[in-house]
């Protein structure tokens, strides 16, 4: 639950209240899973695209929404035409790859700081457009591990009580927005016992980030990787909306659930995000004495 913006911190406090206070103390609040007869909306295009400063074939995933109670993944769109144009004049075509289940850039490239990128999608005669830019990022100075004694007493899963600690610099002269990814053995950690989406702006964050504990717990020998990505204000807003939606309580104490504001536009409804990010990363093997925080 840590690492998130202050919004999430607040929500976690609220949840503390709702769960500990209401359930335990009032010994009265109850929660149960229910099935409701829900309407179903027309399928809508979903864009999930990420261009980074890493030199590689970048991806654009296109799919359609499905009904709330539908089983399986939402269907992938394979017949669209996808292109990214850089303000420096370069244009990159994307083609569908069955292996990646996504459109990949035909040639590898790296996005450059300060540059501006536009995404053009054409599907079933309809056009969609989005733009984003590459914001700079510092580097991860240090990554360590240690045993979290509290977790060790009551681990969420047997053996999982190691946490990683990150040190980095936060440039103070500009407003920055970040997205964080934590990997355990190359798997991005999104769900433990709760839904985690880790992002932050630099409001109230000081110049030095020293040994800040990550939200994910590891067992000895796990390979831990940390990525930090720069976001534009609009991409940050998207993640902030996404987090409010994912962590919604139905609008009683949190805001009313709403679809996140996409930066993709089109002549019909569209969801998702076109994200351009600079990325910095670090990785360690948990338990390796060289990286233990002493």
């Amino acid at each position, binding site marked *: 639950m840590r690492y998130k913006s*202050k*919004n999430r911190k*607040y929500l976690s*406090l609220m949840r503390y209240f709702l769960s*500990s*206070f209401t359930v*335990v*103390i009032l010994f009265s*609040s*109850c*929660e*149960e*899973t*229910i*099935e*409701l007869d*829900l*309407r*179903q*909306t027309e399928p809508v295009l979903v864009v*999930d695209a*990420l261009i980074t400063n890493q030199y590689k074939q970048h991806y654009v995933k296109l*799919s359609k929404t499905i*009904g*709330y109670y539908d089983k399986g*993944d*939402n269907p992938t769109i394979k017949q669209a035409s996808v292109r990214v144009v850089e303000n420096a004049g370069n244009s990159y075509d994307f083609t569908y790859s069955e292996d990646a289940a996504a459109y990949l850039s035909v040639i590898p490239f790296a996005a450059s700081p*300060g540059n*501006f990128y536009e995404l053009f999608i054409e599907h079933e005669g309809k056009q969609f457009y989005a733009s*984003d*830019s590459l*914001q700079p990022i510092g580097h991860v100075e240090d990554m360590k591990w240690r045993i979290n004694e509290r977790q060790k007493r009551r681990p969420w899963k047997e053996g999982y009580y190691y946490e990683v*600690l990150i040190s980095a610099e936060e440039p103070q002269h*500009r*407003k920055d927005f970040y997205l964080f990814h934590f990997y355990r053995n190359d798997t991005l950690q*999104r769900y433990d016992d709760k839904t985690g989406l880790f992002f932050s702006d630099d*409001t*109230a*964050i*000081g*110049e030095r980030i*020293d040994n800040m*504990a990550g939200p994910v717990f590891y067992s000895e020998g796990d390979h831990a990787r940390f990525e930090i990505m720069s*976001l*534009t*204000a*609009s*991409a940050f807003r998207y993640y902030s909306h996404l987090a409010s939606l*994912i962590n919604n309580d139905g*609008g*009683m*104490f*949190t*805001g*009313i*659930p*709403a*679809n996140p*504001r996409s930066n993709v536009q089109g002549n019909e409804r569209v*969801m998702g995000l076109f994200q351009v990010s600079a990325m910095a990363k670090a990785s360690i093997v948990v338990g390796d004495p060289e990286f233990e925080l002493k």
Partner: protein
Amino acid sequence: MYGNAGFTQNKFTVSGYVSDAENGEELIGVSVLVKELGTGAISNMYGFYSISLSPGKYQLALSYIGYETVEREIDLTKQNLVLNFSLKIQTMGLQEVIVTGRPDDHNLTEISMSRVELNLDQVKKLPALFGESDIIKAIQMQPGVITAGEGTSGYFVRGGSSDQNLILIDEAPVYDASHLFGLFSVFNSDVIKSSELYKGGIPAQYGGRLSSMLDVRTRDGNNKRFAATGGIGSLASRIALEGPLKRDESSFLISARRSYLDVFQRMSSHEDVNSNLVHFYDVNAKLNWRKNNNNRFFVAGYFGRDVFRFGNDAAFGWGNSTLTFRWNHLYNERLFSNLTLVGSNFDYSLELFDPGIGFQWTANMQDLQLKLDYTWYPNPDHIVSFGYNGSYKRFVPGNISPNDPSSIFKAWSLEKMYAFEHAFYLGDEHRISSRLSMQYGLRLSAFQNVGSTLIRDYLREGETGQIEYEPVYYGKFEPIKTFINLEPRFNARYMLSDRTSLKTSYNRMTQNVHLISNSTVPIPFNTWQPSSPYLNTQVSDQIAAGVFRNLANNSLEFSAEAYYKWMQGVPDFADGADIFFNPDLALDFRPGDVEAYGLELHAVKTKGKLTGSVAYTWSKAIRTTPDVNEDRPYYANFDRRHVFNSYATYDLNDAWSFGAAFTYSTGRPITLPVGKYNFDGYLVDVVSERNGYRLPDFHRLDLSATWKPAKNKSRKWEGSWVFSVYNAYNRKNPFTIHSRSVNDDNGHRNELRMIYLFPVLPSVTYNFNF
């Protein structure tokens, strides 16, 4: 000979205060009738009355429900008279009459409509959650008042949001009336003397909020003898002490209440329970000094706080404190004045204890007010009121500071904001004929957002993807933006017969402080903001009309009221806005329009062994806000089509009385998923239009029994037991429904979860006084 000819010439005045003979409490709303003329006066909020009459001899009759009627012949042939009255509680056989209050046809004859006065004695006998009787919960049972759900102290009046309710305790504003997130309110029912709610037709004297005013006044304190009242409940206990400092002249009252959940929590062997400590307390204190008839002083204070601590992980809390100084001064028999100085503070804090991300977040707001209210009684046909209300407000929306040297946070604050508010008003309560009376007035309000502060002048969101702005600095008290509004108020009452009256009202209200909340139920961690370059004044206009009829010797009161209300500038936020600690929140402000209308039917039985109230409300509240719900209209979060509330108490004999309360309402609107998709590994809902669904209907029955053992004649001690059962038939009323992601052996999916709060809950409270 008598009438409007000349306002004050050749008249003499009889004036004075009316109080309770037993404890000296000033009585509000006592009818002082001049029998020869069939007209008279009503004692005001401070127990004062004044009647100016042509020279002559008259018969005065003072009546007040539950008190013995007093008749007195007065001689006004030569000079003014000052007459203070002490009324004695009527005793009927052995049984004490418990229903006291204004004259029994007051609901017909008063010019005000859309006004509810709570019968506090009855409130104490009604079933209550955890046995803690609460006037806010009783307010929520009134017609035209809607709740978002049980266990919350927010309420919604005639389509207005909950921050549009002005809540006053001894004339000081209370910004958050909740304890334990709304399970209880800040009002300790032992010390309350009167409480009334205006839903419309609000007199020009009051302003600042759009939808309602709840005026709570605490008791003066017994100035005849020392007395104590108190209660021991299952969640909290309370005690109030009062007595004379100098008999008949000055008195004190002090009361305290504390919850003791934390005491039980500490006893638990379960770590989640015994390390999570929760409590609240509040204290009311008051000094009252009647120097003479021309000068009466009073100081009152309220201090309350909630404290939550979750082991060594987190803590939070909030509290209100208010201080009121009041001076009632008579310039002469016809000119009554009230000067009030009020200071009020609301603050909250959140703290996370953690070496890496530990922080403390505090926020508060203060309000300093000066109120000058004058009432002039030129003759029995006019009561003219005028005055000034000024305030200085300071808003501290958030300070964050690291609470550990290695925390990533730095000390940082959101910009403080300041404002001046001035209002001048003039109103007249005008008796045009024996049938027709009107109350009209005008309020001029001026709100000024001032420095010192820094305003962000936003530029277009640039291609860099950064939020760009020019900081504009304003010096101390330098005006930033001024909002001036004229608010007309009008009420009229026409007596069709002595049993039936028709009333109508129109009022415009404005509001310049705005609660920054995007949830259905406001939480204490929501901050307030003044009107500013990015937030305009909220304005509402309301017209209402009603029929009032009494039957069976005024023991049965019926009313039907219809209203139409439209509001502009009601703040909302763009979908998904992050309202916490966001220095650029102004970019997400979206002022919207609200249209609300409804019909309220109310029947009240005020006399006899069985007393109670039955209320039915049909209403709609529709909002339209840019960038919300794709600009289309949507139902307000608390829009409930049908609401039926009833409560009753039955006094079986001296020892036993029984109470019951039943509530039914259409489920509140809710936004639910209508699809889903995968985004970067997250299973995300596609949500419906805002408030496109409704929760199931809400209904609940609560029961109570009060047992008063026979009093030991030789002792003053009097005790009673209140047994209550909340949710008697154990209805599972959904509090909310939300969607969550589950990723387990059965795969990755989203599911809907329904939360419901209270099952059948019995409780016992012991109340005493001596």
